[in-house]
């Protein structure tokens, strides 16, 4: 049986999730040149926010059609609050500091958020189960679940909404302006602090959307889920050209597809039998990053500085 269509679909789905998270890295970097290493944890807190809504706020047996949007809202609120709070209390005081200071702060914040969730969220020291959407559909030789459909729809809506927002709206234009030259933007009457907060908030919300998709797809979440997903999404952002929102999405999809195909097929190549399987997926993902950066150090779409925002 030909498994290629199924593997491609899996890759695209994983890639959309990376892409949604990568937006957060790339928008923040585009505007304040900060790599927000705590973004993976913003993703993780979004998942726990959504779980809180499902497990503690909604009555048992609520239909998933009602529950999912509410979980999205709950996760979104938590992620946005964490992201905006991090900006306000951790990064803004360091805006004029040497570049290393906010970087170290981000790593510290990432660990702190993990520990806070592990210690204070009930039962979070082990993985917690998350309501999953596992009704499945067969389209030709490809099987996808309801969670996959949710992920694809959410990713398309979010990305096209963001693309429109940045290109056409007044605030989006102000974001592009701030990314290009913050001082001049201020003199054009743009409140750059507000723009920075908006960038963090959008990144946080997208992370929450990815987090809810993750939970619905895999059925469990844990306080360490943000680490690897964050790292992969960061890789996607760099690969696509950090600072470029289209690059983040493209990088995510390329990374997801490459990783899935590599772990599925590389062991068919004679002499590489031991290198297949999901255990090697991360190796291939980062090999791909190194290759891309060797030949295009600015990332796949890195030259389009016009769209950094």
């Amino acid at each position, binding site marked *: 049986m030909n498994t290629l269509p199924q593997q491609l679909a899996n890759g695209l789905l994983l890639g959309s999730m990376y892409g949604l998270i990568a937006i957060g890295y790339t928008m923040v970097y585009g505007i304040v040149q900060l790599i927000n290493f705590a973004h993976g944890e913003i993703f993780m807190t979004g998942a726990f926010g959504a779980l809180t809504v499902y497990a503690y706020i909604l009555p048992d047996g609520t239909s998933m059609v009602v529950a999912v949007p509410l979980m999205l809202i709950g996760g979104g609120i938590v992620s946005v609050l964490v992201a905006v709070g991090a900006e306000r209390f951790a990064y803004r005081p360091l805006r004029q500091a040497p570049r290393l200071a906010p970087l170290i702060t981000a790593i510290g914040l990432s660990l702190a958020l993990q520990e806070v969730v592990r210690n204070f969220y009930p039962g979070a020291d082990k993985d917690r189960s998350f309501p999953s959407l596992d009704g499945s559909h067969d389209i030709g030789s490809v099987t996808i679940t309801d969670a996959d459909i949710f992920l694809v729809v959410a990713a398309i809506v979010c990305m096209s*909404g963001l693309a429109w*927002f940045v290109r*056409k*709206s*007044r*605030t989006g*234009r*102000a974001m*592009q*302006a701030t990314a*290009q*030259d913050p*001082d*001049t*933007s*201020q*003199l*054009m*009457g*743009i*409140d*750059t602090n507000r723009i920075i907060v908006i960038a963090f908030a959008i990144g946080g919300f997208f992370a929450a959307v990815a987090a809810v998709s993750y939970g619905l797809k895999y059925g469990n979440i844990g306080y360490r889920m943000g680490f690897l997903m964050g790292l992969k999404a960061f890789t996607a952002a760099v690969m696509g050209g950090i600072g470029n929102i289209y690059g983040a999405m493209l990088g995510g999809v390329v990374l997801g597809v490459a990783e899935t195909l590599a772990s599925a097929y590389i062991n068919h190549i004679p002499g590489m039998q031991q290198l297949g399987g999901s255990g090697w997926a991360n190796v291939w993902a980062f090999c791909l990053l190194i290759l891309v950066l060797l030949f295009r150090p600015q990332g796949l779409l890195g030259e389009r*500085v*016009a769209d950094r925002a």
Partner: protein
Amino acid sequence: MRFGGLTAVRSVDFTVNAGEIVGLIGPNGAGKTTFFNCLTGLYVPTEGTVSYQGTVLPPKPHLVTKAGIARTFQNIRLFANMTVLENVLVGRHTRTKEGLWSALLRGPGFKRAEKASEERAMELLEFIGLAHKRDHLARNLPYGEQRKLEIARALASEPGLLLLDEPTAGMNPQETRATEELVFAIRDKGIAVLVIEHDMRFIFNLCDRVAVLVQGEKLVEGTSDVVQADERVVAAYLGEPFEPTPEDTQPAAEAESTTSTKGEAQ
């Protein structure tokens, strides 16, 4: 305004009235640009205040712009990767309103506001003669047009006071004359203009009043004749009596060296 032990601008009192063009001249490092930066809130003055139409301005650039002061820069600072029209639209930021929700939902009010804003921006582009290049990227414009576009972008915030920092630096005589006419046209719109310039002919043709800044202090202020006749100005700034003949070639060279002066001030 002090930077560590260095006082860059000291007790400069200055008034510009509506419909008036005032020139600010002075040797390199006199503090002209620093003075502009204080006015626009980029620097917080160590002492003193900036008031506009009777209200004291907070030292926040975006609020200064909102209050009605706009500026251009000594070295061009356009948004190079945006189109000509987008640059002007960014300039209109404070004069347009848009709630997050109306933008997301794209209601009819949003579209109307967006359209009105675009029309206003196009009027400005016609005013400076760049309407036909609305969709060009700013970085692809020739130098003189980039300078004009900066002025249009500043005008887009509908200012009452326009600050021009060396608007003719690097221009040829023809472009300088065109800029002169542009500044007169702006004045005729009832906007007060304060201009820093090294091109003396330009300044004395243009300005109703001229102030001379030397080492951070105001030396004299008055009409062109008064300033030109003042011996202290001649001594401090021109070095020799002003003759409007061969010095026309100097401004470009001087404009370059002011950049290093700015570095020293910081």
